[in-house]
C-alpha cells in the first residue's frame, strides 16, 4: 500500500487518563462490523481478481475441469502492448486533467456563494443536486440533444461549431465527456464543501477582517485552508470516480467512439472481461488501473495535506 497514514494531527493524544487500553479495545469494537463486511464481501473477489491476472483464466460452471496455467506477467505484457489499452489510459489522463481542477474550483466557488446567499437557497441546492440523482440513461439523451450536429450548442455557436461535432470528434469527445462528468457530479461535491464550510469558525473571518483582509484575501487565507480536509476528499473522490469512468463512454459515445477516442480502461475491462469472457486480461487492466490511481492519490494527498 502506498498511502500511509500520517499521525493524525487532531487525534487525541495517547496517554490521557481516559485513553489507553480501553480506547484501543473500543476502537476495534467500533470498526469490527466494517472490517467483517470488507472481509466478507471485498477481500475474496479482489484477491481472486489479482490471482486471475496471473493465470490463463476463464469462468466455468461448477464441476467443469479445465487447465488454468500460471502465466506470470503474460496478461500484463499483452495488455500493456495493446494500443487500445494504452489509448484508454491516455484518455483517462485527459479526463482527469480537465475534470479534477474544474470540479474543485467550481464546487468550492458555488458552495461559497451558496453558503452566503440565503434566499432561494433550497432551490439552488436542489437544482445543483438534480443531475447527480438522475439516472445516466436519461441525461445522456439530453446531452446528445445538446451536443449533436444540429443541437442547441451548435445552433448557439453558429459558424464556430466544430465539424465533426463534439461527441464524434476524436479531439473533442473526451473533453465533452469530462464536462459531462463534472456537471453530473458537481452537486455532490458542492454538498461536501457546504458541509465543510459550516464548520469554519466565524471568529477566523472576524480576525481576518480586523487584520484588514478583503473578502478575496479572507477566502484564500481562511476559507481555503479551513476546508482543506474536504478538498482532499473532493480531489480524491473526483480522481477515483474519473478513473473508473464507464457509463459515459458506454452510453454517450456508443462504446468508446469515435474509434476508441473516448474508451476508458473500465470500458475495456467490461468488453474484454464480461462481453468477451477473458477475465484474466480484464483483471490485468484493472490491477494496473488500481495501482495507477493509488499512485496518483498518494501524490495528491502528499501535496494537499503537507501545506
Amino acid at each position: 500500500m502506498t498511502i500511509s497514514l500520517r499521525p493524525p494531527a487532531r487525534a487525541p493524544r495517547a496517554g490521557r487518563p481516559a485513553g489507553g487500553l480501553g480506547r484501543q479495545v473500543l476502537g476495534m469494537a467500533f470498526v469490527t462490523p466494517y472490517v467483517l463486511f470488507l472481509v466478507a464481501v471485498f477481500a475474496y473477489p479482489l484477491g481472486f481478481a489479482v490471482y486471475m491476472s496471473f493465470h490463463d483464466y476463464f469462468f466455468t460452471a461448477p464441476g467443469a475441469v479445465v487447465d488454468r496455467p500460471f502465466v506470470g506477467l503474460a496478461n500484463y505484457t499483452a495488455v500493456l502492448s495493446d494500443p487500445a489499452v494504452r489509448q484508454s489510459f491516455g484518455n483517462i489522463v485527459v479526463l482527469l486533467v480537465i475534470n479534477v481542477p474544474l470540479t474543485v474550483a467550481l464546487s468550492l466557488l458555488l458552495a461559497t456563494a451558496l453558503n452566503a446567499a440565503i434566499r432561494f437557497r433550497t432551490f439552488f441546492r436542489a437544482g445543483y443536486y438534480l443531475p447527480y440523482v438522475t439516472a445516466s440513461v436519461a441525461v445522456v439523451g439530453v446531452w446528445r440533444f445538446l451536443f449533436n450536429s444540429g443541437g442547441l450548442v451548435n445552433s448557439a455557436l453558429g459558424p464556430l461549431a466544430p465539424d465533426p461535432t463534439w461527441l464524434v470528434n476524436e479531439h473533442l469527445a473526451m473533453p465533452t465527456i469530462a464536462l459531462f462528468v463534472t456537471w453530473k457530479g458537481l452537486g455532490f461535491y458542492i454538498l461536501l464543501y457546504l458541509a465543510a464550510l459550516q464548520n469554519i469558525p466565524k471568529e477566523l473571518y472576524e480576525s481576518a477582517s480586523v487584520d484588514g483582509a478583503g473578502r478575496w484575501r479572507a477566502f484564500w487565507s481562511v476559507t481555503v485552508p479551513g476546508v482543506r480536509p474536504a478538498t482532499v476528499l473532493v480531489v480524491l473522490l473526483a480522481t477515483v470516480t474519473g478513473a473508473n469512468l464507464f457509463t459515459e463512454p458506454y452510453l454517450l459515445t456508443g462504446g468508446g467512439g469515435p474509434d476508441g477516442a473516448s474508451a476508458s480502461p473500465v470500458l475495456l475491462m467490461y468488453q474484454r472481461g464480461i462481453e468477451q469472457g477473458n477475465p484474466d486480461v480484464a483483471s490485468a487492466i484493472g490491477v494496473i488501473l488500481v495501482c495507477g490511481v493509488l499512485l496518483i492519490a498518494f501524490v495528491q494527498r502528499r501535496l494537499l495535506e503537507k501545506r
Partner: protein
Amino acid sequence: MKHLSVTAALAAIVMTAAAACGGGTSTNPDTAPARGPITIWYSNNPDEVAWGKQMVEAWNAGHPNEKVTGQEIPAGKTSEEVIAASITAGNAPCLIYNTAPAAIPRFQKQGGLVALDDFDGAKAYLEDRTGGRAGQYRSPDGKYYQIPWKSNPVMIFYNKKVFDKAGLDTKNPPLATYDQFRAAARKVVAAKAADYAIWPSPGSEFFQPWFDFYPLFAAETGGTQLVKDGKAQFTSPEGERVAAFWKSLYDEKLAAKETFNGDSFADGKAAMAIVGPWAIAVYKGKVDWGVAPVPTSTGKSPAETHTFSDAKNVAMFSACKNRGTAWDLLKFSTTKEQDGKLLEMTGQMPMRSGLSAAYPEYFGQHKEYETFAGQAERTVEVPNLANSIEIWQTFRDAYSKSVIFGKQDPKAALGEAATKIDGLAAGS
C-alpha cells in the same frame, strides 16, 4: 478417508431410497435422464413473455409432476452477462429461450451447456425442423448445443412518405443495386425529405456489424459467414465492395456518423433502416413503410438474396438436473402448434423450413410478414467459433475506424483485422 466413506454410505442410502420411491415406473434409472420440476428463462420483451406464459401453462396443465417455472431475463445485451454469471455460479436454469448464437461458443467453453445430441433422436429432430440452415448452429466439435428457434431476418425498411417526397417509386423502389441505392439515397437527402438516407448505429459495440455490414456481406457473397474454415472472409472482393459501398454513404453524408436518440426511422429522420420483422409491431401506426431486400452490387433477385438471421435460440444448461423434462419441454415448445403461436404473438419467424407453407392462414392475413417468411429461408448466422465476440469486436473496431470515420483505408484496416481474426479463430 473416513469422511469420504461416510459420504459414500449416505449416497448409497439416498440412491436406494430414490430407487425404492421410483417404484416400477422408471424402466432404466441409470441411463434415462431425470424428470421433475424445472425452471426456464425467457426474454422480458412483452410479446415473448406472453408467449412464454401460455407455453408454460399449456405444459403444466398436462404435466403436474414436472412443473415448469418461467422467469424473465433482460432482452438486450445484458442478457449474456446475466447468463454467463449464472453459469459460473451454478444457478442457471434448465432452458433459456433467449440464447444468442454468438454467445454459444463462450457458454460452451465455460462448460455451461448440454449437448443436445445426447438425447434420443435430437439431431434428427432439429435438423428436420430447421432444414439446411441447422448446420450453421453446429459447434466446431460437431455437436448441437442449441436448437435454432426463431429468426428476425433483417431487410431494408423504407418510409413511403419520405420516398414519395423525394420523387421515388414507393411500390418498387430502386434499391436493388448499390448504384440504385446510392442514387435513391442522394435524392432523399437532396430533396430534404429526411436528414439521412439510412442511419445504422455508428456505435463501437461488437454486435453493430450485424445491422450494417454483415447483412450486405451475406447477400453479396450468397451466404458466406464472416469466418469460414478458420479464415476471415471479408477481405474478399465481395467484402471490399460492401465496405466501399458503406464508405461512400458515409463520405457523402447519406448515412450518419452520430448516434441518434431513439429510433431514427420511426422519427422520420432517416428514410431507411435495416431491421427484422419484430419492428413491424413497433412501426405500426407511426410509419407507412415498405420492405425491400438488402442491396447487392449486381442487384440479385429477392429470391436469391441472403441476409443476417438475428436469431435467438434455446439452449440447455449444465446446471439442469431434470434434463429429461427439459428435453421434452424443448420439443413441446417447438412443435408446429407452439411455433405458430410464437409467430402469431411476436411476429418473429420460427426457424422451421417451409414457413409460409406451414402457416398459410397466418401469412394470408398478415401480408406484411410474408416477405420475411420468404427471406427467413435464406439467413446467415454468425460463425460458431471460439472467441466469437472478440472476433466481432476486432472487426467492428477496424470497420469503425476506416469505413465510418475514414481514418484509415478500409482495405488496410480490414486486412489487419483479418490477420488478427485468423489468429483468434485458431483459438489463440
